[in-house]
């Protein structure tokens, strides 16, 4: 479906959308048009070009907000998921923390949702607690409940695991945390381009995601935050555009979301992201999800039949990724041999070393899907693997 919209999908098979998705022509051309015809700084100039760029920039915010069920003031443009999580740690969580307070994450987080919290704990004397998972790759719900205590200041949890593909029941978990008065940040990097996300329906306090994994450009990401939190939060970076008035004695912060967008933002990235949202909306997220689910089921069945191939985890609901080992063959050798056949997959620890340690594998191979993948891509992957296994047999 829509493969012809993606100029970089050469004759090869791209199965690394979990790392970054390919971009449709519509997005590429929109960015090109911006730089050719519309480029000016935002919120600054009195001339028409600047006014137009400002309108485009703010329209993009509006579109992204609508796409995830938020309102425009709740959408902060960042560089990506990582910056969104760091912003939440620094601006929201840190001022709340007392020594002995707890931050709760899960065992399936990738490094961007681990390290910022570790550093926060170092700075504040807070303690990082980890929700365990079972062998299938599902969260241990009773353990999760027990870990939500009066000392928990924030739960930071991934929506979809980038390794296991586990889709966490985030709506239920958020409700449970809220019963105990605990705010929740969801890392939605793998979710937003794959499934319908409605932050209002989920009741998430914060929701972090990236443009480049949802068919938009790199270097643009989003932090959604509830208005009541954003209003109280301290600025993340300081400088131009995030202020109302500056004197040498005192500076007054601009209103949200501008308080969190210091300096000239990634205007082209934002406009490109809005175009990616438009692209997804035209197809419809239900359709995107259904199509990917179909290829995913096919892949699970097809890969499951390959001798020596072991899929890591079998979560109750999986989306996006299948990570596997293949006999004695090392993931780097597998990925290298696949690359020779123009099949792109990821090999390594997928920025989730604690999760890899849990499954006692130093590295694994991951195939991840985008809306351009069809069953024929899976066939090519599945046909190549047995031969590779033979070659690297010990």
């Amino acid at each position, binding site marked *: 479906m829509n493969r012809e919209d993606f100029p970089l999908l050469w004759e090869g098979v791209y199965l690394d959308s979990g790392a970054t998705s390919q971009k449709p022509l519509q997005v590429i051309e929109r960015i090109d048009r911006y730089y050719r015809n519309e480029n000016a700084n935002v919120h600054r100039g009195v001339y028409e070009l600047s006014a137009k760029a400002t309108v485009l920039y703010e329209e993009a915010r509006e579109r992204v907000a609508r796409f995830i069920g938020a309102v425009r003031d709740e959408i902060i443009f960042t560089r990506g998921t990582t910056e969104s999580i760091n912003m939440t740690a620094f601006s929201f969580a840190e001022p709340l923390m007392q020594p002995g307070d707890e931050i709760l994450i899960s065992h399936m987080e990738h490094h961007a949702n681990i390290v910022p919290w570790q550093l926060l704990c170092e700075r504040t004397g807070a303690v990082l607690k980890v929700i365990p998972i079972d062998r299938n790759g599902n969260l241990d719900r009773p353990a999760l409940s027990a870990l939500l205590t009066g000392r928990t200041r924030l739960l930071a949890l991934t929506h979809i695991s980038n390794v296991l593909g586990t889709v966490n029941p985030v709506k239920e978990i958020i409700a449970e945390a809220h019963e105990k008065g605990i705010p929740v940040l969801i890392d939605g990097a793998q979710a937003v381009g794959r499934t319908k996300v409605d932050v209002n329906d989920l009741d998430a306090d914060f929701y972090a995601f990236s443009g480049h994994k949802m068919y938009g450009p790199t270097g643009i990401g989003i932090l959604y935050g509830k208005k009541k939190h954003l209003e109280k939060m301290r600025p993340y970076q300081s400088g131009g555009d995030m202020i109302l008035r500056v004197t040498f004695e005192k500076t007054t912060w601009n209103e949200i979301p501008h308080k969190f967008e210091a300096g000239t933002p990634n205007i082209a990235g934002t406009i490109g992201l809005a175009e990616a949202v438009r692209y997804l909306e035209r197809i419809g997220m239900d359709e995107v999800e259904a199509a990917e689910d179909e290829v995913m089921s096919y892949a699970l069945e097809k890969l499951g039949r390959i001798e020596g191939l072991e899929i890591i985890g079998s979560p109750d609901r999986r989306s996006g990724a299948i990570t596997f080992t293949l006999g004695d063959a*090392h*993931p*780097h*050798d597998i990925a*290298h041999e696949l690359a*020779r056949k123009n099949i792109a997959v990821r*090999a*390594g*620890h997928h920025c989730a*070393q604690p999760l*890899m340690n849990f499954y006692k594998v*130093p*590295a694994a191979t991951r195939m991840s899907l985008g809306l351009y993948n069809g069953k024929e891509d899976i066939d090519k992957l599945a046909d190549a693997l047995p031969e590779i296994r033979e*070659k*690297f*047999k*010990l």
Partner: protein
Amino acid sequence: MKDQELYQEMILDHYRNPRNCCSMENPTHCAEGDNPLCGDHLEVFVKVDGKIIQEINFQGSGCAVSQASASMMTENLKGKTIEEALKVFDKVHVMLTGYHPDEESEDKALGKLEALSGVAQFPMRIKCASLAWHTLKSALKEEEEPATTE
């Protein structure tokens, strides 16, 4: 050099039958190496008597290229002086990061280790091949921090 030649028979042989792949009691030098990119981990053990490398072992986990490189390294360096070993390190480093066989000269010849020269054309794999060598260097220099290819 053609792509196919990355996994030469010699590399696959060393991968399947690694030489000197075990721990060592009382090494005079040892170090651990990590490749954070892929999670590969390697330990290198050296026993130096006088100035000669009497024994050199490795153990760890990694891809065919990293294991073969480590195995070939131990074969090559046994019996050499530390000074000679560091010279081989330099030559391997040059070979992996951009040595072309047509520039070959007496001075650069590496013998069997040249089976690894194909790695140079795959920038993503250079770290795999160089991990053992960086770990060795760190062991010989008795560095305290684990070696890394970053």
